[in-house]
């Protein structure tokens, strides 16, 4: 059965989520609109964090800060959510630190309101052995600003042939297993991994596509790809592989998580599998929820990703999947690439967009403001990602470690205007004016991000701390 060992706050199994040591926060968030869809909390409150733990939640205006140097944030009705979690990011370490590293990637996460992220293993070398995983966990303990977990590969070198030493990797703290970036094409290999899960535990997160159907495709197959003369990746490349893997998981009684759903057919396949009792969860990304292949007409390589942006009916099906619960969480698939790697013709460009810093704002602007999703549902889906890999989800409750994000829902900003925290700037929303902005992120009890304009007052009556933007 699953290998358990004591862990940091945020994890229930033997999974290790690791970040650099940081001073536990002492923070009074005064008059915030606290919203936690899981506890039903929804209203103006004062929230006190002492030594990194939520110690009091009371009616707005009723709490006073303790005498010692506790920071006070005047919320003025701005929203406080449980901080977001992302089960699917690429931190490009080891080997591709020119795109991202543990420090910049987790800084980007914190700036987007995330308190925990799970990194994918398609690095160079692949995260497929205990020494590499161990070295990364050590590095994260020095560099990561928010807790990071690692999902090592299902197969050595992502080659799809031999299984990694999954039990040993789990003992070290693997957050699950994935060959993300590639499908496990050989059904026999995947079946062995699903069987082996009974020994070592760990959800298998699956990137689903049939290489024979995707071919050399560079975008969604449809009218736009036809007009552009670019080879297409058909929706059925994804949905047929998902159908196969759901059938295998059902047969083996295994637990799988389907990554980055993009197509209507895929949502249908998962709904059917769930109704038959298959232990499957799935995610959708902010870009697949807000953009379509119409947005690829300019051949902006920042909008080239795998799976590709699909048709409007696919986008609508994903939104409906969030509403009806078929889709369990939103995950960014944050995939940084250096500028010169993306400044090439579309067909030659690598797949991927960054997403951590825009995840909440993009979905809020495009789906919550027009009334397609409720705010509570968005928060629920952005905080559910660790639940999908059988880890705890953050919550605003007394006694819980502080994993909080303060958001100004009225603030407007232009994506990329003042740069990014990520090392890379390949954001598919670049140039878009978005509404809502993360002001403050508390991750694992410590302040991980603070927007420059946010005003902090020391409770001892000391000088107010203001960023340069607030002064001008």
């Amino acid at each position: 059965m699953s290998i358990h060992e004591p862990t940091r706050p945020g994890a229930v199994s033997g999974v290790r989520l690791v970040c650099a040591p940081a001073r536990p926060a002492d923070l009074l968030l005064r008059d915030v609109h606290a919203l936690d869809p899981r506890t039903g909390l929804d209203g103006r409150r004062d929230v006190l964090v002492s030594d990194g733990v939520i110690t009091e939640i009371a009616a707005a205006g009723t709490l006073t800060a303790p005498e010692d140097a506790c920071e006070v944030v005047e919320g003025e009705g701005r929203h406080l959510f449980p901080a977001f979690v992302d089960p699917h990011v690429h931190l490009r370490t080891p080997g591709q630190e020119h795109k991202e590293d543990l420090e910049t990637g987790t800084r980007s996460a914190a700036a987007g309101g995330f308190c925990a992220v799970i990194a994918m293993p398609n690095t160079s070398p692949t995260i497929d052995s205990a020494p590499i995983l161990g070295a990364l966990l050590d590095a994260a303990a020095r560099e990561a600003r928010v807790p990071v977990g690692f999902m090592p590969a299902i197969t050595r070198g992502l080659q799809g042939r031999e299984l990694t030493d999954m039990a040993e990797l789990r003992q070290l703290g693997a957050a699950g297993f994935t060959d993300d970036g590639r499908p496990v094409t050989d059904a026999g290999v995947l079946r062995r991994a699903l069987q082996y899960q009974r020994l070592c535990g760990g959800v298998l997160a699956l990137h689903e596509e049939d290489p024979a159907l995707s071919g050399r495709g560079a975008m969604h197959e449809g009218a736009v790809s036809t007009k552009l003369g670019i080879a297409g990746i058909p929706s059925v490349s994804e949905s047929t592989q998902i159908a196969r893997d759901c059938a295998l998981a059902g047969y083996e009684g295994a637990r799988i998580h389907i990554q980055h759903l993009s197509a209507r057919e895929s949502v249908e396949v998962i709904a059917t599998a769930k109704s038959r009792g298959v232990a499957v969860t799935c995610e959708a990304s902010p870009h697949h929820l807000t953009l379509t292949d119409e947005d690829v007409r300019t051949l902006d390589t920042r909008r080239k990703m795998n799976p590709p942006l699909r048709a409007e009916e696919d986008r609508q099906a994903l939104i409906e999947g969030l509403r009806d619960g078929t889709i369990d969480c939103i995950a960014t698939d944050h995939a940084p690439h250096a500028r010169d790697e993306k400044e090439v013709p579309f067909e030659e460009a690598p797949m991927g967009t960054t997403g951590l810093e825009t995840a909440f704002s993009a979905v809020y602007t495009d789906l919550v403001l027009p009334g397609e999703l409720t705010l509570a549902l968005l928060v629920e889906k952005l905080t559910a990602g660790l639940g999908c890999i059988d880890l705890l989800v953050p919550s605003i409750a007394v006694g819980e470690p502080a994993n909080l994000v303060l958001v100004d829902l009225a603030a407007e900003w232009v994506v990329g205007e003042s740069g990014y925290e990520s090392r890379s700037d390949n954001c598919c929303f670049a140039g878009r004016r978005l509404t809502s902005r993360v002001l403050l992120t508390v991750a694992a009890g410590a302040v991980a991000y603070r927007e420059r304009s946010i005003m902090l007052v020391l409770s001892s009556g000391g000088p107010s701390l203001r960023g340069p933007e607030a002064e001008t």
Partner: protein
Amino acid sequence: MRHLLSINDITRDDMERILDRAAAFEEVSDRDIKKVPALRGRTVLNLFYEASTRTRSSFELAAKRLSADVVNFSAGGSSVEKGESLKDTVLTLTAHSPDAIVVRTPHAGAAALVAGWTPAAIVNAGDGKHEHPTQALLDAYTLRTKLGSLEGRNIWIVGDVAHSRVARSNILAFRKMGADVTVCGPPTLIPRGIEALGCEVRYDLSDLREADVVYALRMQHERMDQNFVPSLREYAANYQINGRRLGPHQILMHPGPVNRGVELSGEVVDSPQAVITMQVKAGVVVRMAVLYEVLAGARDERSAPRPTQPQLA
């Protein structure tokens, strides 16, 4: 017109103006001394990332007949294989201050990308399977010469539509000029959603007789390896334009080079209905008109602010 990147970007008026000017340049090609000083002192750079003899020499002749200086830059393989990125190559060549760059690459949208990196006027001479706008213009020119007008004419484009930039540009151009377009080929080589370009789709040649113009596309041998069609023999049996299928009053076109015995039988290539060499001849005058248009015709627009990234589709 600042650049010629796509038929999609230009209006019917633009097309008519270019074709009229091409007609005016006809006379130059018939002179003993085939040169006018229209672009004297201008530099045209041919940047070709794909093997091409006819398109490149056609552009070279066109530029020289307008007295422009011509530099040819050929790169084998893709920019990635070569080591230097497309952007770095363009920046390097831009340092020589070319007035126009004629770009052919194996990648869709590359010409538009280049337009964002250099102040030179860009002429797309084929970007992947996306577009080949000067081919469409010279085909429209040829048909206008033969038929007077394309209005209401029925044009069939037959063959490997999926991998053809010529098909994409020509569908758009012929539609813009008022013609009806039907594409016909094996279902494996007709891309999904092609109807959105405004054409009809057929999978056999049984109604070919309704066409005024039959435009055959080149069938590439590598398509056999990829299982798009079972064999050349089967392809020819179903889609070859031959004396039996081609009606007596139909015009036959082909962008070249022809695979005799595959998409066209020898007898139709040599028949008076074929206008294939006329197309090649039109290539030079139409490209003269295009170079004139982007270099001399739009002189007063050159200081205008550059538009944001063009819509390619």
